[in-house]
């Protein structure tokens, strides 16, 4: 009997996942987005073994400076003679990891606070939500700029700044989702059998609030990549000579006249990556909640 119940539970879980997956892969945009993300992830993981960071990515070759795209340098070279294509490939590591870790930070803090605010309500909820309002009142990018200035400009601090600045969105989405779930009967049942409250929140309520959170994660990775490259562009993100796409773009600004390709390619790379995450986010939203599809 127990085995039967377990089997049916497993079947149900698979079927829910399979259902969403089936709807997702019917969406051409989402499939294209997934493909691009998979390729980028592959590049980000393997580039370390293909290129030598010290000699091929950050080393200066002044004799080869400012060469236009050619067979030797697919995307040309920058003002220090570094190959832009190699730097772009390596840059995928930074941009993807900044985006993913930043959203990981926002997700961890935001969903925890949002779940507590939604579940407990009352004074706890009020305090969390008012603090969130204060945090959200400052524009996202300004908040990230102030935080990264305080912590100092490096990759880890950039992740923290972008992540912390995105916390309010996760708090609000999670709280809203928890509010709709917390009065459901299975939550009552869990309480009735004496499960402790944190277990109820994290094992019964949050798993049932995942749809809006998953969509939020995908879309926020896109915004985090843009925010991180924006900070590097402003000179307060990842410091040179790290091949971060935003700082590469910023370095190319001085050479717009005649050497516009230096800014063109990093910008394209950011746009394609962000586009991929946006397409997957849109596809996931439609797949998780077909009612939303318009």
């Amino acid at each position, binding site marked *: 009997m127990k085995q039967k119940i377990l089997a049916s539970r497993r079947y149900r879980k698979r079927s829910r996942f399979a259902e969403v997956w089936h709807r997702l892969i019917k969406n051409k*945009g989402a499939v294209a987005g997934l493909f691009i993300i998979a390729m980028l992830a592959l590049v980000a993981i393997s580039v370390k073994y293909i290129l030598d960071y010290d000699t091929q990515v950050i080393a200066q070759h002044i004799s080869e400076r400012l060469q236009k795209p050619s067979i030797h340098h697919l995307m040309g070279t920058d003002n220090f003679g570094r190959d832009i294509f190699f730097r772009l490939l390596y840059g995928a590591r930074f941009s993807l990891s900044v985006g993913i870790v930043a959203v990981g930070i926002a997700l961890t803090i935001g969903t925890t606070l949002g779940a507590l605010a939604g579940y407990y309500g009352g004074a706890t909820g009020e305090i969390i939500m*008012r*603090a969130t*309002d*204060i*945090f959200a*009142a*400052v*524009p*996202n*990018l*300004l908040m990230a*700029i*102030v*935080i990264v*200035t*305080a*912590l*100092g400009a490096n990759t880890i601090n950039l992740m923290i700044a972008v992540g912390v600045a995105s916390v309010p969105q996760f708090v609000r989405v999670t709280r809203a989702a928890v509010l709709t779930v917390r009065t459901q009967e299975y939550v009552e049942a869990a309480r009735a059998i004496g499960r402790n409250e944190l277990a109820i929140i994290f094992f019964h309520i949050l798993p049932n609030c995942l749809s809006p959170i998953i969509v939020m994660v995908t879309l926020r990775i*896109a915004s985090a990549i*843009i925010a991180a*490259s*924006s900070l590097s*562009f*402003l000179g*307060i993100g990842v410091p040179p000579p790290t091949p971060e796409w*935003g700082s590469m*773009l910023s370095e190319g*600004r001085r050479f*717009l*006249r005649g050497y*516009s390709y230096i*800014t*063109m390619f*990093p*910008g394209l790379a*950011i*746009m394609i990556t*962000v*586009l991929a995450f*946006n*397409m997957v986010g*849109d596809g996931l939203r439609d797949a998780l909640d077909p009612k939303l599809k*318009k």
Partner: protein
Amino acid sequence: MYRYVIKRLLMLIPIIIGVSFLIYFIMDLAPGDIISQMAAEATEDQIQALRHQYGYDRSVFYRYALYMKNLARGDLGTSFLTNKPVWDMYRERLPATLKLALGAMIVSILISIPLGILSAVRSGTIWDNIGMVFALLGLSMPNFWLGLLLIILFSLKLGWLPSGGDTGFLSIILPAITIGTGHTAIMTRTTRSSMIDVIHQDYLRTARAKGVPEKYVIRKHAFKNALIPIITIIGTQLSVSLGGAVLTETVFAWPGVGRLIIDSVNQRDVPTVTGGIIMTTILISIMLLIVDLLYAYVDPRIKAQYLRKEKG
């Protein structure tokens, strides 16, 4: 209605206190204070004198309390760098930011509303797909990059428009398009989905059934009822450009508030950063309040709700 407005304005007070606290303390954590920037070659006595003058010989709590005491009297403090009142500096920069925000809004409304309506009315056709691809591209394009592309094309290659500074009408076009493109993307999607919601309502079928021409059905019956989400998104996007045009202002050397804040952050000018962000927060909150009040004018049902609450 007045009570609602006053209540919303009063709610700003804790937000201002919270924001000032947050920014003041985070900025205090930043390595290298203003004294180290100003007194690179000063003697120890001069450094001590400067520390005393700017309150750096006391705790951050003391400095914050002093700042808040002045803020309560409407004084945003004096810039460490220029010695000018922060309010005067903010006031000097605000017109440029407002002009740019308005320009961006006009660009995005002119493009996104017709495009959104077209996508909704021709839902599922090639027009819809073109509109949505355009919106997705606009949403994914970093605006500092778009700004640089526009400079390359219209300033450097064609020589039609200036590449930076606030030098008249022509100089606003490129930065307005840069900010407007991001807004256009979001507004097109909202207009489309809001119109699609309305387009299938019974009262539109009735309007068509009684022979109202299609363009009137769309313009008068559908669009008016789809306006609430569109106004919300216009207001939100306007508030975004009031507070977050830092990048575009940097790319186009536009003398706006965003540029003032980022320059002050780099120089550790705490009063200017805190004052600038407080004023930006107030401006955004007022903008969002205006949006809420606009609902009442667009939708009589919402106005009735406000009035009922007031009576109750």
